[in-house]
């Protein structure tokens, strides 16, 4: 168990910079998820923490001690690989004890540890089998067991659930979170799946292009994205991003300048920035449909809903503003297609700087 600090971590592959100066403190026992699209540098960052890649620049510290030049073994970290990386020539028991045997632990210690880890993951029945014919879920359990059997300082997971079927994934996700809390081990988890990130993380580190875009607990990153990238990447569908213009004390939507009635206080807040153009972000679930006529004081505008899709109990409706497609999400039955009024819950709206993409409020 350790606190992990990254100071200006950089990693280049030839001319390509994969990680461009990362500063990050992962607290002891914290569950941190590195989230981002493919190629954002999240796996490279993880491999640097593991010690499988040596950084081009910057430092890595475990509990304040510089480990940048240390080999993975010296750092006492554990890693779960995307495709398990289990040895096909060994039985599960031997795979799980590999880290202990490699460190020449005593027979007694090994026996106790295997018993402990087998109990935790409920894999007694798998111990004396080869992994060859096992379903991915069982392989995953063995990979996890091998990782935690040595009481690692840091547990590192590289998209550990991506090779599993949907149904296994839900179950393993739950189990993973549960075990992490039990073991109280500092955990870094890499994924491109925001649902995994949302459900597991104490803190999400959202990355893009080798940099951190935002780091915050899941609900905060969801409610208060720091920039348009975070706004769009998190959520499915992501946040709607409307180009808006402030004119006098009216907010105009899109190029066609449809006037959107909004509360006076938002207008005031926008006015003090002394800018005219903004990006307004609002999540699909804060959009609704109000028939032909909108009530007084509501922020609605007329739009044509051209398609809908049913997702469980919800219905996602799609409409266009200036050829861009936007989504709303409502719990309503019946036909929604056609002309209507789309209304915004403006208390949930977020405004971004049009040039930099940074959130204003």
């Amino acid at each position, binding site marked *: 168990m350790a606190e992990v600090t990254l100071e200006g971590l950089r990693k280049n592959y030839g001319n390509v910079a994969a990680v461009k100066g990362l500063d990050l403190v992962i607290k002891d026992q914290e569950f941190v998820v590195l989230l981002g699209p493919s190629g954002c540098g999240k796996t490279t960052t993880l491999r640097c923490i*593991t*010690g*499988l890649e040596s950084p081009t620049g910057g430092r890595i510290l475990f509990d304040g001690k510089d480990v940048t030049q240390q*080999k*993975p*073994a010296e750092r*006492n*970290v*554990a*890693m779960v*690989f995307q*495709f398990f*990386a*289990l*040895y*096909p*020539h*060994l039985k599960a028991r031997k795979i799980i004890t*590999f*880290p202990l*045997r*490699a*460190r020449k632990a005593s027979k007694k210690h090994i026996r106790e540890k295997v018993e402990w880890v087998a109990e935790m993951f409920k894999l007694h029945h798998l111990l004396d*089998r*080869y992994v*060859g*014919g096992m379903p991915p879920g069982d392989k995953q359990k063995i990979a996890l067991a*091998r990782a935690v059997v*040595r009481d690692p300082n840091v547990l590192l997971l590289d998209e550990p659930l991506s090779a599993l079927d949907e149904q296994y994934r839900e179950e393993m996700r739950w189990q993973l979170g549960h075990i992490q809390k039990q073991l109280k081990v500092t955990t870094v988890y890499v994924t491109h799946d925001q649902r995994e990130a949302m459900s597991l993380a104490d803190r999400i580190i959202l990355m893009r292009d080798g940099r951190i875009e935002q780091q915050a607990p899941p609900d905060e990153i969801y409610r208060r994205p720091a920039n348009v990238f975070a706004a769009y990447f998190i959520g499915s569908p992501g946040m709607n991003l409307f180009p808006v213009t402030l004119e006098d004390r009216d907010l105009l939507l899109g190029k066609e300048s449809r006037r959107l009635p909004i509360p006076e206080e938002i207008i005031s807040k926008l006015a003090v920035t002394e800018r005219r153009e903004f990006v307004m972000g609002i999540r699909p679930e804060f959009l609704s449909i109000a028939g032909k006529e909108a009530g007084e004081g509501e922020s609605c505008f007329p739009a044509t809903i051209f398609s809908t899709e049913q997702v469980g109990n919800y219905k996602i409706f799609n409409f266009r503003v200036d050829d861009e497609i936007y989504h709303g999400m409502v719990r309503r039955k019946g036909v929604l297609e056609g002309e209507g009024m789309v209304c915004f819950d403006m208390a949930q709206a977020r405004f971004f700087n049009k040039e930099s993409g940074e959130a204003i409020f």
Partner: protein
Amino acid sequence: MQERKIPRMFSDRAVCYFFLFPTLVLLLFLLVYPFLSLIYNSFFRYSVLRAAVPAKFIGFNNYLFFLTDDYTWRRFVFTGKFVLLAVSIQFFLGVGIAYLFQTKFKGRDVIFTMILMPMMLSPIVVGLFWKYMFNTEWGLVNYLLSLVGLPAVDWLGNPTYSLWATIIADTWMWTPFTILLAMAAFSGIPKSLYEAADVDGASGAFKFFNVTLPLSAPVLIIALLLRLIDSFKQFDLFYALTGGGPGDATQTVSFQLYKTAFQYFYTGEASALGMILLIIIIGLSSIFIRYLTSLGEKQSA
């Protein structure tokens, strides 16, 4: 679209036979007939040189002759020594060198290509090369020995040294083969397994014995098997390098077979000896193949 009609002059099966026919004829003449006549001849006193003398059926006497003959027994002992020493040296050297080639270093590809060259030469040529290099008076090997102050060795004139001379030449020629197969085996091991072992704190040796070796075992066993069969019937290298000498010190079983068949023309006896050799090789291979299949079944079970 309209279906195009292909005239059905021949059925699929007929076409099949048509293409198989030449191969079958070839196999019959080159494999099946000689093999059957080998078995047949091995039970007769018969020589192709004296075709006028009718072959006389003598049962297993040809076999019994070789199996009880001291001289033949010594050939087997020599062959066994040679096979065991040469193959194990080549195997360890080959696996070791292949392991060294896993790391990237400058000039790796050039050196690798050069190392593979001996394998591409004809054994006769290799034998002649080494014959000159082992020459007692002006050979390169003794010259090199003299540089470090060692006395000249009578490589091809002394029975003990001539065994080593053949082993050295064979090793020089065939180690590359083991290197090649071992490298193929090593490169087939996923990188992530090594990374997992690194994270798990395995030392280089621990990784080699617990990851590299067991995972490349199937291919290494095939390499071993091929080398074993090959060196067991090794003939041309001996023919060119030592001619079986000094005396008969480096005569392998296959060398004796050659002499029996093509110098003395005892066709019946030669056939029997050939059968004995064949049975031994089949026996050896089946041990390996059985081990190999058990290995495969174990891991997929």
